[in-house]
């Protein structure tokens, strides 16, 4: 009997000491598919070299707000890489799956890369769209996702609003009028940024797409530079898509260590380079310089500067009964 127990124990220890197969679920927002497909492969290789363990990362994509709600409702994400901090705050506050100060755990407020909102127009820019004023003109059809469900759409809304505030001396009434005109030009609201890209690029709807910078570049790459062109307005918003481990899920899955390292590796040279190649603005200055040609220079305002932070922006503009509900009338 002792011999059998010894064999079982030895076998168990040997199995425990062997390489592990780890699975992670990254719940992300709409346009990061390509970024994380490339990054996941790089991280898996890095992790195996470092620890001998193989890690398989599954991705889930959708409108950032919808994705956050899915995690709150039980989607067992080990990490979330969403479009804006407010959505991760919602997971923390409503589902208590991670601490309230999650954003302090990684550099740059847990935002390893940034982006902004630009215009994607049809080749030749037939409507001569150069700045936000052109977007609100009568007869211009604008494609953008629903800010209630899409992080990118919220950034686009705030970029336009910020432009109006800057242009009209922070006159809120005029800014509201400006944003009203803009959304009068929006015939259809998709639930996510990728859906809006499909509407504009594949369904041939509209004159201009208010797009994530990386999404606009991807559209050029995907559909051909002979069909579209990117117009960078002189002013836009600094979009900071943050990342976090979902502590309770990761703990339950015994993936806390690898999930943390997965996010930390986004700040590594390789992680930053992958971000830059996918048209996300890297935090690392050297890599930003290396890929400077990928990114146009423009004035970037922040949510904190213009709107007093995300919580305030959410409450004022996107909460039920907020400014967006007041100004948007489905056509």
């Amino acid at each position, binding site marked *: 009997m002792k011999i059998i127990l010894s064999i079982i124990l030895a076998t168990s220890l040997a199995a425990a000491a062997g390489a592990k197969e780890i699975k992670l679920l990254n719940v992300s927002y709409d346009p990061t598919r390509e970024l994380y497909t490339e990054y996941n492969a790089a991280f898996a290789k890095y992790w195996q070299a470092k620890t001998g363990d193989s890690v398989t990362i599954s991705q889930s994509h959708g409108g950032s707000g919808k994705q956050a709600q899915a995690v709150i409702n039980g989607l067992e994400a080990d990490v979330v890489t969403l479009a804006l901090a407010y959505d991760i705050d919602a997971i923390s506050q409503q589902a208590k799956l991670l601490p309230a100060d999650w954003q302090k755990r990684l550099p740059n407020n847990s935002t390893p890369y940034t982006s902004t909102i630009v215009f994607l127009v049809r080749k030749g820019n037939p409507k001569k769209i150069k700045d936000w004023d052109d977007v609100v003109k009568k007869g211009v059809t604008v494609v953008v996702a629903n800010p209630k469900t899409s992080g990118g759409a919220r950034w686009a809304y705030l970029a336009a609003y910020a432009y109006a505030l800057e242009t009209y001396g922070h006159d809120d009434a005029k800014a509201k009028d400006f944003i009203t005109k803009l959304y009068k030009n929006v015939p259809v609201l998709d*639930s996510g940024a990728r859906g809006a890209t499909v509407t504009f690029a594949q*369904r041939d*709807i509209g004159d201009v797409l208010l797009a994530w910078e990386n999404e606009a570049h991807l559209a050029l790459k995907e559909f051909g530079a002979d069909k579209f062109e990117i117009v960078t307005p002189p002013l836009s918003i600094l979009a900071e898509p943050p990342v976090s481990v979902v502590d309770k899920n990761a703990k339950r899955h015994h993936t806390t260590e690898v999930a943390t390292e997965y996010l930390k590796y986004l700040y590594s040279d390789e992680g930053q380079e992958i971000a830059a190649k996918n048209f996300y603005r890297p935090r690392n200055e050297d890599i930003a310089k290396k890929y400077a040609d990928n990114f146009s220079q423009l004035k970037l305002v922040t949510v904190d500067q213009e709107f007093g932070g995300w919580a305030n922006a959410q409450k004022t503009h996107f909460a039920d009964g907020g400014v967006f509900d007041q100004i948007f009338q489905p056509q």
Partner: protein
Amino acid sequence: MKTELKKLIVAAVIGSQFVRGSLAQDSTSTNAAQVQIPAYAADGAGGNTAEAAEIKALKQEVEALVQKVNALEAERAPAQQSATIQDLDQKVRILSRERENDQEAAAAFAKTQPKISIGSSGFSFASADSNFVAQLHGLVQLDSRTFFEDGGNNGNDGFLLRRARPIFTGTVFHDFDFNFTPDFGGSVVQIQDAFVNYRYNPAIQLQAGKFKSPVGLEQLQSDPYTSFNERSLANDLVPNRDLGIAFKGDVFNGAVSYTLGLFNGAPDYNGTTTNSSFQDDKAFAGRLFAQPWKNSDLGGLRGLGFGIGGSYEASHPNTNSATGLTPGYTSDGQQKFFTYSSGVNASGAAWRVSPQAYYYYGPFGLLAEYVVSDQEVKKAAASTDLQNTAWEVSGSWVLTGEDASYNGVTPLHPFSPHNGQWGAWQVVARYAALDVDNKAFTGSVFADPTKSASGAGAWSIGLNWYLNKNIRANLSFSHTEFDGFTGKAAPGVVPAQAENALFSRVQLSF
């Protein structure tokens, strides 16, 4: 339309010339030619050369204007049409995209909604992700029994509510199944099943609670699917439901199933089960059953299954108030034909072995099992080891051609007389026998031959009518003969004469 427009334009131009002319009359900067037009026009008759030239010039001017209008029209029309077409195209695209988005949203929304279904398999409520499922099933059996040539004393003729069970089953957190089945049939309300089963995967499951002890083949067959109203004599020797915990699973895609459990330990079949232990010792029970060709292309062998079930209990204390023995072996008519004498207790080891098999091919079905139940018993200073045996073979044939199976018959044409459909009909036949160890009667210590039979043999025939998946009606007849009875054929003594019983049943199950 265009011609009309041109006429209007020409008229307007000419009119404007007249107006200009009349205005010119009042003007200080007079244009002579224009001034004269109204005069000429008023004359209406001929005119001088100058007037003719003037008219000609005017005509030319009008023609030139008409040409200009034509040219402008020709220029503008395609552009306008094109703009209209583009506008319409965008509107169509937008509507189409909105529809696409609505469909996606509806599909996504549907995925988040709980699902409710009602059908022949009962009522089911499931969460959107199917992690939580609650199902309500039911089983109601209204029987009749009529005994012949029994002198009017044995077995009550009449109707009985044999089973009336609401069956609550379901799943929580995806992997945990549960079953709670009370029974309001008969004269005693009892909990038949109450268990939780954790499914790690189909091959590894852990079940805890009250459920059927994994020994007898016929006993493990679900109640709505048995061939006859009552299970056979062989079933007298296997345990009924018991409390315990069991590992179980299906391997090789269900070709082999196993169960191994630890239970309180149940006596030979007792229709009334308890919800607690009546003694300290515990019993192991297990079963291994194979259907090697279940997933093969060999149609003739796919329905063949065979296996072995058994139980073992090391020792049973004879000091317990409960005897640990069967309250009695019963006939098909549920009449006791054997009981242990007063003061006899189980004492020492008890074990059972039951080789078993079934075979189903098309409408044909065959089920057989053999059971040995070995029990050490003691009465005062006397003790012995008794080995009782039983067996049964039952066959069935679905007259209407449907497939027979261990899990019942599903009619191809559910009962609907308006459409000339009559459901499925099945004939069934069975022979079973039970033999009590003769040592039980030695010196009449453990059993009294003047009160009990030492064995019984019964044949049964029946007709089952499956109106649809939920309703079934049975009619059957059983003849049971008893051996070894030496008592008088006094009224109320069951084994004094053969039992002839007619059974009927109307069953609702879902």
